[in-house]
């Protein structure tokens, strides 16, 4: 007996030797080991608690959450003589948000900040006296893609005017995307187009409806304000018509205000006397567009949250890592249970044959006639949702596959001379199965084990995606995708990352299974 | 040179296995003249089938690869033709009959369709005319009930019948050169004789040149005008059929001839050449036959023998005859 064992080379060893040649499979094995490692040590690896919103955790981690969601506003004030205003003039401005639901602005003596408070696009008006400029704020990357007017620049008469003299002023505008509209007609056309765009998207109108608070021109925030509006602030010195013609009517210094769509600038005019001093005419925000992040929901991927956060502001990266455990648990446990039961039944059916073989084979055929997922769904339907039931369901359809392959190789091994020899000298059946037949089936069982784990993970994820996994808030890949589908339809990252985790895991198991199969027997097919 | 149909020069074919490349056919050269039947003889694995497949450019690539050499058919090098031009040669100018009649016909098509295919490819005949031609060919190769067989499937036919169909396919476009790769090996002895008779008869009718590949010297004696003996990818002896049978020079040829059972004298035991054909790539230097040769001497170990002319049309690759040839 002993010598016989030594003569025939261990099928397991030759199999390992060949497997080492399968480069792709070997790499997959490394990745799988990595995934298992992640699964085992997930509690140590996760940067955030996957069950709670990250905003609650910033303080515990000693991070200043407000850093994330605000941005400082700096401005440059331009004077009528073309120079920059000094610092003291530069800090005297106020900020007004057009939609406080999306972003809010707050200013202390020294600094001004814009905070994200919701999601979407809005604008912040920066005003200093009569001059008003606008900057666009995009929260959570939800850009509406529309530029709006940011600043107005008017050409003032360089020299002082004679009484009764008229000059035409030119007005140009800067948009939030940086382009310049040089002609008045362009500005008018843009304002019109903007109006049309707004009319077609009534939902986005809220921003303007709520702009009444604390803004001087807001009572005119109607159709009128959408066209260029000239107003003389000193009617005793200058008069202005709506086409921009300035007429000097009295001595002294006058100012004309030009406004459109909530923003405005000033034109200083001097009549019969030189300019005394330059006045501020334009206020230029440090950035025309400000991208902010909403820290309370759906944060996009960043250095802080590699995969972003979900609809309940939980860190997706942590959840994906954590989900590895449940996924691997479903994969390993269900397939192992299926393999053990299937192998035992397969050995029995193959070795003893007769009626017990007939019975087992018949049951196997019935079970194999149905696709795995439906079988699993039927089992869940019977037992009710839950992770244990998922494991059980996946095991149920794994069993017949193992019965079939083990029975097949048992039948072949039964005819081997060494088995017949063992039988002829009266070795007990149980010993023959354990010592001589089971080792021969182990390599093929291993191949199927690996390949089925991938399938089991897929089906487990599908079941929990369908809501049959019990706890839909659990950090489990399928459940995460199900939640993302319901709560984050328009966003990419909440659906992408858990899914790619499934793909990588299953792909590695599949590639490994393919490699094992090729190493074992290139002709073996699924 | 007009009567030379096919001229193979320095043909070398390599096969790759895992990471090593083995030379299976090593720099062989021969000619087939018009109307001649040339026999290519050798044990299995000596490279004769690969040689014939090379002429058709049907060596499975990979793992095989024609490494060097020229195959000139009527002056054109077949190896330099484009695939499309080669297709015009295959089945039309040169056709081939294979060893395995049982598996060489497409099982899911009728005999008729497979015969029509080659006719339609190389002639301008209409489908109807092609069918008539096919039936005519079936009759020519001695198939009874040709119309009925025309619409049969291969699995309904016996091996001999299938080989006749193969011959019909091979000859349908009246090729100038027919390559027959062991056409009778897989058949029963009686059927073998019938097929050989058929081939000889057809050859007389059509004056086709034949490259006849076989390991059976009896068949060679019956069919061929000239014979090339191959061993381990090399030509070891070339002679006309009478010379070869009556005055074999190479020890290998002698061995082959001796191992034919004779009807007249009852030997105690049949002669056989000891040992086996060396595995491809196992011999780096010296004569490839030396390990099995009773007359081997020192020189056979160290130097490769050359193919030297012994008399007109008789060549041999053996150190025993090196001095007799023109070279010294």
């Amino acid at each position: 007996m002993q010598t016989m064992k030594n003569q025939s080379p261990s099928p397991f060893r030759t199999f390992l030797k060949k497997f080492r040649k399968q480069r792709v499979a070997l790499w997959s094995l490394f990745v799988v080991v990595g995934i298992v490692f992640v699964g085992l040590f997930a509690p140590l690896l996760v940067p955030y608690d996957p069950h709670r919103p990250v905003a609650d955790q910033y303080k515990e981690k000693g991070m200043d959450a407000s850093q994330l969601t605000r941005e400082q506003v700096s401005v440059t004030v331009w004077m009528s003589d073309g120079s920059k205003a000094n610092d003291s003039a530069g800090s005297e401005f106020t900020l007004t948000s057009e939609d406080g639901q999306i972003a809010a602005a707050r200013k202390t003596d020294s600094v001004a900040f814009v905070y994200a408070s919701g999601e979407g696009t809005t604008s912040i008006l920066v005003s200093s006296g009569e001059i008003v400029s606008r900057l666009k704020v995009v929260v959570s990357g939800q850009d509406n893609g529309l530029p709006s007017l940011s600043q107005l620049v008017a050409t003032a008469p360089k020299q002082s005017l004679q009484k009764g003299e008229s000059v035409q002023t030119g007005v140009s505008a800067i948009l939030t995307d940086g382009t310049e509209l040089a002609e008045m007609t362009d500005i008018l056309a843009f304002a019109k187009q903007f109006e049309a765009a707004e009319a077609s998207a009534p939902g986005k109108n809220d921003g303007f409806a709520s702009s009444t608070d604390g803004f001087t021109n807001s009572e005119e925030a109607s159709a009128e304000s959408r066209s260029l509006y000239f107003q003389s602030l000193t009617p005793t010195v200058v008069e202005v018509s709506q086409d921009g013609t300035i007429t000097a009517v009295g001595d002294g210094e006058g100012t004309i205000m030009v406004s459109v769509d909530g923003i405005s600038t000033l034109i200083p005019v001097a009549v019969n006397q030189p300019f005394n001093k330059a006045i501020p005419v334009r206020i230029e925000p440090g950035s025309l567009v400000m991208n902010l992040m909403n820290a309370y929901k759906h944060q996009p991927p960043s250095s802080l949250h590699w995969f972003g956060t979900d609809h309940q502001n939980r860190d997706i990266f942590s959840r994906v890592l954590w989900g590895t455990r449940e996924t691997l648990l479903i994969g390993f446990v269900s397939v192992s249970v299926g393999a053990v039961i299937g192998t035992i039944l397969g050995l029995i059916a193959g070795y003893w044959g007769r009626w017990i073989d007939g019975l087992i084979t018949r049951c196997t055929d019935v079970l194999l006639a149905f696709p795995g997922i439906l079988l699993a769904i039927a089992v869940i339907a019977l037992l009710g949702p839950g992770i244990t039931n998922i494991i059980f369901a996946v095991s149920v359809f794994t069993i017949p596959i193992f019965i079939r392959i083990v029975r097949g190789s048992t039948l072949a091994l039964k005819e081997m001379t060494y088995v017949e020899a063992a039988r002829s000298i009266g070795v007990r059946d149980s010993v023959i199965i354990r010592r001589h037949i089971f080792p021969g089936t182990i390599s093929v069982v291993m191949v199927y084990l690996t390949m089925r784990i991938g399938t089991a993970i897929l089906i487990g994820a599908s079941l929990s995606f369908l809501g049959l996994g019990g706890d839909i808030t659990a950090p489990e890949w399928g459940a995460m995708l199900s939640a993302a589908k319901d709560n984050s339809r328009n966003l990419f990252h909440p659906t992408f990352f858990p899914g790619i985790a499934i793909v990588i895991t299953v792909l590695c198991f599949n590639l490994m299974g393919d490699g094992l199969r090729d190493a074992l027997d290139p002709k073996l097919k699924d | 040179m007009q009567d030379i149909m096919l001229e193979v020069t320095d043909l070398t074919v390599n096969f790759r296995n895992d990471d090593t490349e083995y030379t299976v056919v090593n720099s062989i050269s021969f000619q087939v003249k018009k109307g001649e039947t040339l026999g290519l003889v050798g044990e299995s694995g000596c490279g004769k089938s690969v040689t014939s497949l090379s002429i058709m450019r049907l060596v499975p690539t990979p793992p095989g690869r024609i490494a060097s050499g020229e195959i000139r058919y009527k002056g054109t090098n077949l190896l330099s033709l484009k695939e499309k031009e080669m297709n015009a040669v295959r089945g039309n100018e040169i056709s081939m009959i294979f060893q395995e009649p049982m598996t060489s016909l497409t099982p899911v098509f009728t005999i008729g369709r497979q015969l029509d295919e080659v006719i339609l490819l190389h002639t301008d005949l209409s489908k109807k005319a092609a069918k008539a031609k096919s039936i005519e060919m079936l009759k020519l190769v001695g198939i009874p009930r040709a119309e009925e067989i025309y619409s049969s499937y291969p699995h309904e036919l016996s091996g001999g019948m299938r080989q006749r169909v193969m011959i019909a396919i091979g000859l349908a476009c009246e090729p100038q050169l027919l390559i027959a790769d062991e056409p009778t090996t897989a058949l029963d002895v009686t059927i073998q004789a019938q097929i050989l008779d058929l081939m000889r008869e057809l050859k007389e009718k059509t004056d086709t040149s034949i490259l006849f590949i076989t390991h059976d010297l009896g068949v060679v004696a019956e069919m061929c005008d000239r014979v090339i003996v191959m061993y381990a990818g090399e030509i070891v002896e070339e002679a006309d059929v009478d010379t070869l049978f009556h005055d074999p020079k190479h020890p290998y040829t002698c061995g082959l001839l001796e191992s034919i059972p004779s009807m007249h004298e009852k030997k105690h035991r049949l002669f056989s050449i000891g040992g086996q054909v060396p595995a491809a790539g196992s011999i780096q230097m010296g004569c490839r036959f030396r390990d099995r040769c009773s007359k081997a001497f020192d020189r056979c170990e160290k130097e490769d023998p050359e193919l030297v002319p012994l008399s007109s049309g008789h060549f041999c690759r053996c150190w025993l005859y090196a001095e007799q040839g023109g070279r010294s």
Partner: protein
Amino acid sequence: MVPMLIVVSIIAFLFVHLTPGDPIRVLYGNEIDAETYQKLKEKEGFNDPLYLQYTRYVGKIVTQGDFGISYRTKSNVSDEILRRFSYTLFLTLASMVWAVVIGLIVGILSAVKRNSLLDRLGMVSAITALSIPEFWFGLMLMQIFAVQLGWFPTSGSGTISHLILPSLTLGLGVAAIIARFTRSSILEVLREDYVRTARAKGQNQWVIVLTHVLRSALIPVVTMTGLQFGFLLGGAVVVEQVFAWPGLGSYLIDSILTRDYPVIQALILLFSVQFLVVNLLVDISYGLLNPQIRYE
């Protein structure tokens, strides 16, 4: 097939009896008093022995197509099934078209251009496709083509454009299986002697593949493709849920989540019958393709 049907119908029948919940209470409400309860139980036949109930259940299905009353909607299950059946049928058929077209093209190209970049790319895509969960692929397609590009509607049904994304999603896995199988099947046939014969005739390589080879190689592919219908029906359950497709699959999931056992019972039976019919059709088509089987 018939014994299989009987086994399945018994399992499906026992479903309602094995699962928690009293059908009488569910159907008529919890308030009814004990006397009415007994009366109703007698009337509905729940006091009869199981085998009698079973024969009545099967009899109703066979003679009237009656699958009982839904616990949830209190309406006839067969009406709802009939309404939804065509949706699932269209979805699976459209997916099969995708799967066969993509699978065959990739499989044939990979086999003919064996070991080329194209082949590697095709096979890597295939094994990746087999590792992608259908529902995620569906969500990604929806994200890209419906949400970002707006080419197709995100969900619902009614027009051809509604059908494209769900059917592509569902067909992907089967396409990969068909591609792999076609490739290996063709490669096997390409080694056959008769392919060499065809080449020796001077036939073009592509023509050989499309005639001599494909005909033989497709026989196992057809069998396998037919068996994949089961895979599709299973996948349909998931995909219908993703795209809110009003087919039998989403009906099944809804019923499971609301414990509507008569519906579950009917659907399990129906799905089983579908597989068995498909398997039968596969066997028949196998005979038509292979002359050897036809003649013997």
